[in-house]
């Protein structure tokens, strides 16, 4: 028995139709695969770039903030401290930068072929996770060098990874859909990424933020993610549950809002992209 598809102007806020997205999960897989295949084509060192970027950034941070500025790092050697924060941060910033431009870059597809548009930014959020996995190996090497053995908290690392994905996907949905209508977004993203990095405890520890600002500060979901990564990998400092709960809440709100916003905008993508 065939089902009949009805095409009509969509009404209401909550016609998310995530079932169609699920039906196209193989396309998601192929888009991620395309992204990974193409990214390092015609480069000399290839996929090593995925490792070099966070590694070199860590070295710069270790010299400037660790050595010169004597930044406190919760009694952990500064290089691992910075690298453990850079892992989820690089993932997050890559996700939002790539997905911000994604719909416009694939405008040909959007104008000529039907598929749930959600898979495009979703693919941009999945692909950098591969880079993350590669740099994770480097972190393990670094930790071995500094004779750091992760504790049992390592088991909950996937939860913080999930939180990073939720935050990245949420922000990506907003930015990619906005960029279709307002190309200003494309220009704003580099600044947003830079600003956001200093608003997250990447180069400095959370303990450096004055207590009265902590609540406001923790609304940034990346605070929870970065602190969570450090806690489960390095298990030195304590994890502030309130701060984590706040960050998780904002991440979920951004994602749900982003889904609704994206689905609303999706109707006109083909006409205005």
């Amino acid at each position: 028995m065939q089902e009949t598809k009805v095409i009509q102007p969509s009404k209401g806020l909550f016609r998310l139709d995530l079932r169609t997205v699920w039906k196209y999960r193989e396309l998601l897989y192929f888009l991620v695969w395309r992204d990974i295949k193409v990214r390092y084509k015609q480069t000399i060192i290839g996929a090593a770039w995925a490792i070099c970027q966070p590694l070199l950034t860590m070295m710069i941070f270790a010299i400037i903030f660790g050595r010169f500025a004597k930044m406190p790092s919760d009694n952990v050697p500064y290089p691992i401290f910075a690298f453990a924060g850079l892992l989820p941060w690089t993932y997050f910033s890559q996700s939002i930068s790539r997905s911000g431009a994604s719909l416009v870059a694939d405008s040909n597809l959007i104008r000529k072929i039907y598929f749930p548009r959600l898979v495009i930014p979703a693919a941009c959020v999945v692909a950098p996770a591969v880079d993350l996995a590669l740099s994770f190996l480097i972190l393990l090497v670094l930790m071995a060098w500094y004779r750091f053995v992760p504790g049992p908290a390592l088991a909950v690392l996937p939860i913080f990874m999930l939180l990073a994905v939720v935050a990245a996907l949420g922000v990506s949905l907003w930015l990619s859909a906005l960029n279709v209508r307002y190309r200003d977004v494309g220009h704003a993203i580099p600044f947003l990424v830079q600003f956001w990095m200093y608003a997250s405890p990447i180069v400095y520890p959370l303990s450096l933020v004055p207590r009265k600002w902590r609540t406001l500060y923790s609304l940034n979901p990346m605070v929870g993610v970065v602190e969570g990564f450090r806690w489960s990998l390095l298990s030195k400092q304590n994890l502030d549950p309130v701060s984590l709960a706040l960050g998780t809440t904002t991440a979920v709100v951004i994602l749900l809002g982003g889904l609704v916003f994206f689905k609303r905008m999706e109707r006109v993508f083909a006409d205005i992209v």
Partner: protein
Amino acid sequence: MSELAIRAIRLAKEYEIGEAQHNTLRDQITARLKSLFRPSASASSAQQRFWALRDVSFEIKKGEMVGIIGHNGAGKSTLLKVLSQITEPTSGRAEISGRVGSLLEVGTGFHFELTGRENVYLYGAILGMTKAEIDRKFDKIVEFSELQQFLDTPVKHYSSGMYVRLAFAVAAHLDPEILLIDEVLAVGDLAFQQKCMQQAQRLRDSDATVIVVSHNMFSIKAMCNRVLYLSHGKVLADGLPDQVIPMYEEAMLGGKGALDTPRWAAPKLERDPARRAVSITDMQVLDSSAQPRTMFDFGERVRLRMKYTIRRPLPTANFVVALIRSDGIGCCNYSSSLDGFQISPKVGDGELDLLTPPLKLVADLYSVHILVWDEHFQRLHGAQIGGSFHVRHKLLSSQFGVFHELGEWTSRPVEPLNSPETPPATKVEIR
């Protein structure tokens, strides 16, 4: 058998065009401010909207092959986009039963850095196939594309023909129940086109529903058993190809549009028509007794009357009239220089008549392209698409070639088989 594949009920689509589209935040803010201070501004932006589709209703049964025809901007592509869910209608609804495959452009989604093999998978997935399905059809796709030896070459090294062949091969194996096609059959060499037609035939036999948008009346006639004629977003006619296509062709003939530059001459000309040395200001299609006419019987003479302005003095003005058939084939040329006729190349206005010999062109629609060359066909001084006319014949169509001339036939009786010329080896005896 009479089950419906598509039912469209009062489909409408409105677009905002021109300045009403604000692409950056700044544009939108300034537009808001403007309309705040000048209430008429919002009224003028309302004029910038137009209806690409208006109240389009039709029903298409399973297994029908439907052609959609109409002038540029009539809403054909918009209709396909709405039916394939690329864009939403502004109002109305459509019900579709069956898996839809749409090919609005062959090869969008290919990635230049990836190899042919990789692109088959990527493009297949974009069109909605699963990996298992592509795995299963992979060999057939490759065989169809005839690109076996280039499969592991990145497609950026492909010629455009190879690129299209691979893309079409993937698309042809989509096996949808409802296929929406926009002008993609006009690709590749003749042999490949034939293959595509066979594939369309196979789809028809498999009871698939096919909807084709095309400007090529020949392929519409060959493929479709029903034609929808759209004009300004509305369905003007819906019926058998033999009934609807002539209506469209008549409308094309009557349409007194602005004179255009032929596509193939455009790159050789200055962009701005006002700066060309010669411009054609008017052209009329007349019969041999100088009466305006657009429909001619096979074998009639056609008189083409053109008015022109020469802006710069030229050494020679060689007026060339080319007749181009509706499928884009250039059928014949008349050249004033080759015919030994001198046209004064001085600055000023002039009028010129060309009376063709009895036209032996097959029945079809022909457009008239006028070109002004120097006598050696090296420099192009001006070009224009004039009107068009129709040639009528009850049998001869473009399937019979470009023109039809009478041949001279003679026959002789043939000697019996035992004649000395016949080599014994080829002798066939049937008992």
